């Protein structure tokens, strides 16, 4: 006699809490073969707004944490992912329709990616910043500083990226002290929500990573036009509709957001993804013995 399973409810992740969409809407998530997997929350523009508010209120404190601390928090995510590996493999198998081996490879890549980025937290500033030998009695130092609140569209491909793509977008954004509102893979959002649950039980402060499930086409314009969003990562926006991401970039120009254009697949880990969302701040101070 087999035991009756207890299905999981997948909700949004905003400000450290897991609310349903304020709109009450859900959408059906299926496997590639069409089998019902779950009812995911269909986030609305108001959920996006709430997520931006949560991200903003968490940003200063997160950026103010020591880089060592942010690095440890990110590493802790990798540890927890490792411990819940089976769950993620299972979700990827279901929602992407791939074999356990393929899904396992994606989970492993995701864990390694967190570890790689975690190590950057207290190093990227040394690579991206430097002292400047100005001609005069001044101490002059350029250091990178988080841009602020970043909105991101996770890669939307049907296979290979549902977990890895989200992590590859989120990790480089948050490690420098940004907070993020990320729209998960629309068709395969389950592992994204589970990842958010991992974050909530790790040491990531509420509001640092906010995950919305639903339609990028519906949510992205609101995020692109939101005046309190400082930057836009359009990694997965290429698939919204042919060329629609250009309109997002045009919208983003209104408040001079920094914009990263779409990529194919999950963005490869790189220092450039970190520095895309930092501002170089140069501080001058007078120097004198007298």
């Amino acid at each position, binding site marked *: 006699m087999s035991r009756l399973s207890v299905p999981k409810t997948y909700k949004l992740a905003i400000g450290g809490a897991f609310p349903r969409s304020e709109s009450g809407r859900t959408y059906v998530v299926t496997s590639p073969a069409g089998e019902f997997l779950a009812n995911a929350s269909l986030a609305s523009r108001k959920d996006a707004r709430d997520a931006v508010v949560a991200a903003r209120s968490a940003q*200063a404190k997160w950026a*103010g944490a020591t880089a060592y601390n942010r690095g440890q928090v990110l590493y802790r995510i990798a540890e927890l992912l490792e411990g819940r590996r089976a769950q993620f493999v299972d979700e990827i198998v279901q929602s992407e329709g791939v074999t356990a081996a393929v899904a396992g*490879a994606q989970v492993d*890549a995701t864990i*390694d*990616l967190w570890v*790689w980025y975690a190590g950057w937290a207290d190093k990227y500033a040394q690579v*991206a910043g*430097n002292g*400047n*030998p*100005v*001609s*005069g009695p*001044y101490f*002059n130092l*350029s250091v990178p*500083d988080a*841009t602020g609140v970043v909105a991101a569209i996770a890669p939307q491909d049907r296979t290979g*990226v549902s977990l*890895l793509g989200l992590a*590859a977008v989120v990790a480089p954004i948050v490690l420098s002290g940004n907070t993020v509102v990320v729209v998960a893979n629309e068709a395969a959002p389950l592992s994204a929500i589970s990842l958010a649950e991992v974050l909530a039980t790790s040491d990531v402060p509420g509001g640092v990573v906010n995950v919305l499930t639903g339609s990028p086409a519906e949510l992205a314009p609101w995020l692109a036009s939101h*005046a309190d969003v*400082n930057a836009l990562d359009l990694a997965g926006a*290429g698939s919204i509709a*042919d*060329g*629609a*991401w*250009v*309109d997002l*970039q*045009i919208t*983003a*120009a*209104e*408040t*001079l957001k*920094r*914009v990263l*254009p*779409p*990529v*194919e*697949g*999950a*963005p*490869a*880990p*790189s*220092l*450039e993804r970190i520095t895309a969302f930092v*501002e*170089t*701040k*140069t*501080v*001058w*101070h*007078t120097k004198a013995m007298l």
Partner: protein
Amino acid sequence: MSFLEYAPAPESTAILNLRDSYGLFIDGEFVDGHGAAFATISPSTEKRIAEVACADASDVDRAVAAARRAYDRTWSRMSGADRGKYLFRIARLIQERARELAVAESLDNGKPIKETRDVDIPLVAAWFFYYAGWADKLEYAGLGSSPRALGVAAQVIPWNFPLLMLAWKIAPALAAGNTVVLKPAETTPLTALLFAEICQQADLPAGVVNIITGAGETGRALVSHDDVNKVAFTGSTPVGREIARAVAGTGKKLTLELGGKGANIVFDDAAMDQAVEGIVSGIFFNQGHVCCAGSRLLVQENVHDELVDRLKTRLSTLRLGDPLDKNTDIGAINSREQLDRIRALSDIGEQEGAERWSPACEIPSNGFWFAPTIFTNVSTSHRIARDEIFGPVLSVLTFRTPEEAVAKANNTPYGLSAGIWTEKASRMLALADRLRAGVVWANTFNKFDPASPFGGYKESGYGREGGRHGLAAYLEASGWQAPIESSPASPRSGRKARKAVAK
């Protein structure tokens, strides 16, 4: 007699050998433009200096084509060392012709000769010297082992530091291996045209630098030209926005240096006399035509009255008048249009209830002038505390605690500059961390150096000019690939996507 009046000490214009009219500098030669030529005038006298050609779309095409040819055939194939040598040559020629350039700049822009002579032109030479040395060292710029030039750069610069902004744009672009088409502001084309002559004297290969003159229409045609790989703009935030929209989806790399509303924060323990000097140079340097000007003075409430009093005393020694007089501190406003804007915003300041003060100073009858002005009793909600005035107008606000100072300083859509005046180093550093501004000057203000990156947060634009960071604006990184496996990522074609949504 009054000693302080100082007898006139005019810099001679005899050193200038200007032509009556200037063409466009395309492919190494001056050629006629197809737009309607216009006169550039001296803002201090409203007298005509020279006639300048106007580039229309066909001229922009020609200039971009010349830059493309020069890029493909010459500049991209030349060794970094040789590119560097050309830039060193240019730097030397600028030093040799420094006085002439200083006089031309003062004449055309209206800024005091003291500033063009001691600040603008020396920095121009320094900028070329600095980037000249980078040309054969790009692999050390932190952009991977083989960073690549972008191609043709379209550069549009403002009128506040005409030749210096040209140097900020052209020096790193050329060092990185790009060719350029640059458009100076329509009210200040003169020194860019003299720079074209310098390129000829340096024997710079034809087409590597092209200078086209004209107004907004010319600039629009240039930045939206299909065969341009890079757009760099310094100017107002509204125009920056327009350019960001025009460039969206094209894959052109874009850097923007836009407006600002810098906060100059003075604590009660500050070195007061030096703070007063910093406030003065922060907002009255270059008639306040400075994007990073300290246009908002945030002063700790317990020293407000004393500081304002000292500031007023100090302003009374500022000398406004002939830009070519070596003792002039405040020159002319660059254009009637800008003067009208400064007047309008100042009038709004008064209507909003702020208290307006200017020192007694004689305003010349011809030309465009605006006396240094301080507004006290300014609230954060006043327009003079929020809008960039781009003139010699200071808004004074107060704060009570460091926390309030940070909150007020950051309470603006801009994020270019900020100043901190305190003798307490720990507070200075903590404040510098919290200020959302690309340049923070502590116990100094309005200092520039080719080795020091400059640029803004938020609506003050993006990208940096100056230093190693300034090279990133003109290079494609060769990339760091993480040594771990993940699915390959490649950029989607932007331009194709753009066409799909053609409007």
